[in-house]
Every structure is written in C-alpha cells, then in structure tokens.
C-alpha cells in the first residue's frame, strides 16, 4: 500500500498528488493517509478486482476515472 506514502511524499514537496487504489484497499488507504498526517486526502477507487481484466478492458475501465483523477489534482 505504499502508493499512499508516495502521494504523501509528493504533497510534502508541494506537488499535488493522488493515489489509485482498488475498492478492497479503501480502509487501508484511509488509515495510511490518516497515519501520515493527511486524513481525508482524496484518492481514486477502481472496482476490485482488476487483476483478471484484459488490457483493453483495463484501459476502458480506467478511462471512466480520469476525470476524477484530474479533479483531485486541480482546483
């Protein structure tokens, strides 16, 4: 779950950042943001699981979440 740590590291350097997780890791992600001092930091949840998706399916699913990603990185 260290993608959360990476996002926090960027935020500390003044770089807007967000994390992509799957729904199964929602609680873990929220806990990690809280324990790193960034409670409530926005992240994006893809439906779990993704490991069984073919590349084209993965791309198509991801495209639905791009606007959400952007919304976390800008005003």
């Amino acid at each position: 779950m260290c993608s959360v740590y990476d996002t926090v590291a960027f935020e500390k350097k003044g770089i807007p950042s967000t994390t992509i997780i799957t729904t199964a890791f929602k609680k873990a992600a929220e806990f990690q943001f809280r324990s790193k001092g960034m409670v409530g930091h926005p992240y994006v949840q893809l439906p779990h699981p993704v490991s069984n998706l073919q590349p084209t399916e993965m791309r198509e699913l991801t495209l639905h979440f791009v606007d959400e990603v952007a919304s976390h990185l800008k005003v």
Partner: protein
Amino acid sequence: MNERVDEFEFFLEKPWSDGFPVVTPTEERISRMLAQTERDYEEVIGLIPPAMEIATVRTVAVHALMAGCRPEYLPVVLGATELMLREEFNVNGVQGTMHGVAPMMIVNGPYAAEIGVHGGNGCLGPGFRANATIGRAIRLILMNLGAGIPGISSMTIFGMPSRYTYCLTENMEDHPWDSLAVSKGYRPDENVITMAMVESPRFCFDDVSDEPDRLLLGIADTMAAMGSWNMHARSDMVVAMGPQHAGICAGAGLRHRDVHRRLCEIAGLRVGDLKTGGNWRRERALALPIKVDPDDDDCFVPAIKDPEDLQLIVAGGWGPCTAVCHGWSGGSRAVHGTYQV
C-alpha cells in the same frame, strides 16, 4: 487493581488486542521487565509501520510484559524488533497484505536454551512459555504500534494461527548437523535470530522412506503447489525437518548443505502442470528472476529461486514428519543477526 475498571476487559476491548487477555502492565511489572536490560529505556528501536508509532526499549518491554514474557526474554524481543525493521524484511508490506504470512523467528545460540526456548516435541505450540510469549510480543507490537489490524490497515484474508505467535529454536539435542545460524557463518556461541515471512506449516508425513532420495522427493512435493506464491514469485521458505527425517539424510552421509542443495534442485513444478490452476500467469513467470519459458510445458520452475531463500532447520520431536512453511509473494527477504543479551 482499580475496582471501577476490569483490567482484562479493558485490554480485551482494544482494537489492537489479539483476542487473548494480557498481563496488566503496571509500573512495578514494567520496572521488573526493564531490569533485564542495560539499554537506555528511551532508546528508539524504530518506527513500526504502517502507523509508524515509536518502539523504544520501554515500549517493547511493555509489550513483552503484556504478552506474558519473563524479564529474561526481553533481549530476544528487542533483538527481533530491531531485526524485523530491516528494509529488506518489508514489515510494512506484510502489515497490509491480503496474505496471512507472519514473521517466523528461529532463535539459535546458547541464550535461547538458557531461557527455555523450545525446539523439540511440540515446539510450534501450544505449551512453551518462551516460544509463546516472545512470538506474541512481536505480534502485539505489530498490532498496537504498527496498527496491523484487520479492518483497519490489514487486508489479510484469513490471517493465520501463526499470527498469534511464531517462535522456536532448533532441536540441537537430536540435530545431526550445525544450527541454521552456524550454516550462515555465525559461531556456535553467538546468539542469533533468523526471521522469515512465512505461512503456518504444512506437514510432510513419511514413515515409509528409509533413504534420502525418496524422502526428499516427498518433502519437495510439499514445497511446491499451484496455489503457493513460492511458485510464482521469489519467496522465502522454511523447511523444518524433524530429527528422524534429518537422521535418515545424515545417516546416508548427507550434510546440511547437501540436503539444502537437493531440495532447491528438485522442489518445483513443470510449466505444463503449473498452468492448469492456481496463480499461474504468463507475466508472472516472465517476471521471475530466473529463466522460465512459459511456452515450454516441460520447463521446470523451482520453488526456490535463490538458495538463500530456503531456511533449512531441524526441529520438532521424534517422528516421521517435516514441516514446510511457504512464503509470501516476493516482497520480503529473510533477515538474520545477533542480538545483545
């Protein structure tokens, strides 16, 4: 004790409780525990991930006390805490993983025997205070200071009984070879802990083989499974040969390193068999740190990708059994080191 608060209920209701009562940490008991160390009580051992709370000598002592440790166990708990925080062991990853692996502690050297860490009959429990409480202290640290708690930061699907406690020594009385620590280059008089992130054991019973070839084939079979991460990633494994099985090998003239090498060579599965179920993915096979041809059904995929990953010990009571503990999906390397008594 305070009449208003039931101390047992107080701790049993904590989110970091392992489900069993703890020894109530009073200042008097903590002082007695700390009397066993000459280290500065405020010395920082490290930060326990993912919550990154600070483990000092004192806080480790409190967790050891709660676990039921005798004061003389404290040096081992301190040593293990330090060891498990090494980067390559990757406690942070294990605290959150869906897997159920736990840090297995193999304690070698004279101090282990002195304080009663058990390596013979029934050593994986229950029933031996040093084994039970030293391992439990580590788990309480991981849960309280690290917040490795299911429903909070831990995604473990099943957990595992070995997440309550997982600590033993080798059966040096019936051991035909040197200890694991000596095989790694330590002196016999050094106090050493080896930790590997592994599952609870599965057993290989074999009361038929009376020579090593057949015996090791059976043990190797237990080391390989479609659903084992050892087949799909570089991963540690602990093989604890019961002294009867080890004796069959030693009696045939095999040394520890001969058995170790043989198991590394023969434990594994053909691509053709691996593909038929479990965790097989072409990309995983290609990502292995060894050459695997996913299109060659006869290509052999060893369970042990690097000889360093197999921790071969002799433990347990007399009987025709070897315990095999599978590993995690490759993000942890076993660690070992001396500890200060």
